[in-house]
């Protein structure tokens, strides 16, 4: 039994097939990268798995349980956490309160939630901004807060949608570090969408490639970047030359 199994997912937006028969599995403890051209359907696939979209057909099984079409809150309670590609800039709650909401997912007690939230913030080196509102933070930190509040829900599978975009190479290093740590010490399985190849290459153990909604390749990072189709559709000649 695999950790996460995705079978033949199809998602059609009124004629535009964003996901077409996508299947793959993820094992516990893995770090999987999901890449593919813009508009290939990566975010849509995430949404189908966690339940923001109901797939037109296909099946998603998580830890042996059929979670197809479950609402996002329910998949979260199953242990799937996800972050957003585009984070909404909000003004109503401080960073700490945001993360506490995540922690409340697993407890009803305020003090427990607060303790857990502080722990996560500390872990991500965000204690400095705990009393800021989201709109007062630079985008990268906002994303990190998004990650923190998701982490506070204690996910076993963490799905990250472009956490590293907008970061410079140095900052990417830090994120890679962090993800590895989560994977190692917290035993969190990671599934991440990323366009920044340095990052994908560094962290993922396996890479899945989507193009026009279909899976066109799957394999080790080193193999993927040499794949003809992937180079043609995604990486571009220049990248290939750089290798």
């Amino acid at each position, binding site marked *: 039994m695999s950790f996460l199994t995705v079978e033949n997912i199809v998602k059609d937006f009124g004629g535009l097939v964003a996901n077409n028969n996508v299947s793959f599995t993820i094992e516990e403890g893995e770090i999987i990268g999901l890449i593919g051209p813009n508009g290939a359907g990566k975010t849509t696939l995430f949404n189908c798995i966690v339940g923001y979209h109901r797939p037109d057909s296909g099946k998603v099984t998580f830890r042996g349980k059929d979670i197809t079409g479950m609402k996002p809150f329910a998949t*979260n309670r199953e242990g799937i956490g996800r972050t*957003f590609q585009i984070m909404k800039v909000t003004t109503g709650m401080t960073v700490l309160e945001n993360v506490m909401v995540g922690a409340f997912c697993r407890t*009803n007690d305020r003090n427990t939630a607060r303790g857990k939230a502080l722990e996560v913030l500390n872990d991500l080196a965000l204690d400095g901004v705990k009393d800021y509102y989201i709109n007062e933070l630079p985008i990268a930190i906002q994303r990190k807060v998004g990650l923190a509040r998701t982490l506070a829900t204690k996910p076993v599978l963490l799905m990250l949608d472009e956490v590293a975009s907008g970061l410079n190479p140095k900052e990417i290093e830090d994120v890679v570090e962090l993800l590895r740590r989560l994977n190692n010490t917290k035993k969190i399985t990671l599934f991440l969408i990323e366009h920044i190849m340095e990052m994908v290459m560094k962290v993922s153990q396996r890479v899945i490639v989507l193009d026009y909604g279909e899976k066109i390749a799957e394999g080790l990072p080193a193999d993927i970047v040499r794949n003809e189709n992937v180079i043609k559709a995604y990486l571009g000649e220049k990248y290939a030359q750089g290798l």
Partner: protein
Amino acid sequence: MEKLKDALDFSDFSKAERIGLIIFSVFLLVFPWLGTGSFAKTVMIQFLLFSLFGMGWNTIGGYGGQVELGKAQYVGIGAYTVALMMVWWKIPFWISMPAGILIAIGYSFAIGYPLFRLKGHYFAIATICTSLVLKDIFDNWSLVGAAKGVELPIHEHPDFVYMQFKSDTYYYFFIMALFYIGLFYMNWFRKSKLGYQLRMIKDDEDAAESLGIDIRWCKIKAYSIASAFVAVGGGFMAVYNLYIDPASTMELSLSIKIALMAMLGGAASLWGPIIGAAFLVPLDRFLGSWLGGQKGLTGIDFMIYAALIMIVSAYQPRGIWGIIEQFRKRGR
């Protein structure tokens, strides 16, 4: 026990706020003996009543950020339950009021479920519509007195079973007790899990959902809490006025007034609804009493009232509490 402690714990407020609360409480306690006259007392009762309504609205409207404009239907439900149970079966207030709460909660679940498929203005208009529909039904339903409404028989005074008193002082202390129960509940509520979750929903629904929050369920819960608060107030109105009809308990203007007070005071803050009611109720009543009968000035009282609403909402969208905070910050 833990909850009770939370409810009575105001320690995360500033010192000024806590002192303010104490002074305010002392004032409330001694008010009947200040010799301010009976009209002032009726105004205070209205103020406490509308604070209670506003606190209720604040759960869904303030913390939850859902523009709810149909609270009057719950005033009606609370009031009618008390009145009809008394008229039909002579059931004491202490049984009929809880019954009213239960009916209000049941009803709020029934309509909340479809209602919370809607968002934003669609939701706001839909809440108005449900309220209008209920009012129209009551207006034409002869079993519940239709538009004639229901009159409660007058009892010997004072009567603690049916909560009928000649002197307003009794009503005053009764509504004050309800007010404090409401205040302490809200103080707990804002720190509770549901309180946090609602604020998250208000900020960003998608994110809230990804954090394991069942948005619709949370909203329904908050909505029914709000409805229960309002139904309590409605029950009080029935025994206080001894007469209720659809026009005075279910009207759209009442719904708006409830939301308006909370909003103008400062939505999503504990003090907001209280401050809003403290500002608008006396303004409305005293202006109406002083200027209402003045010939040649018909409408002036309303114009002043309306202008103040306009000024506050344009000057500080966070309401009066926002203005106070603004000045406090500047003061520092």
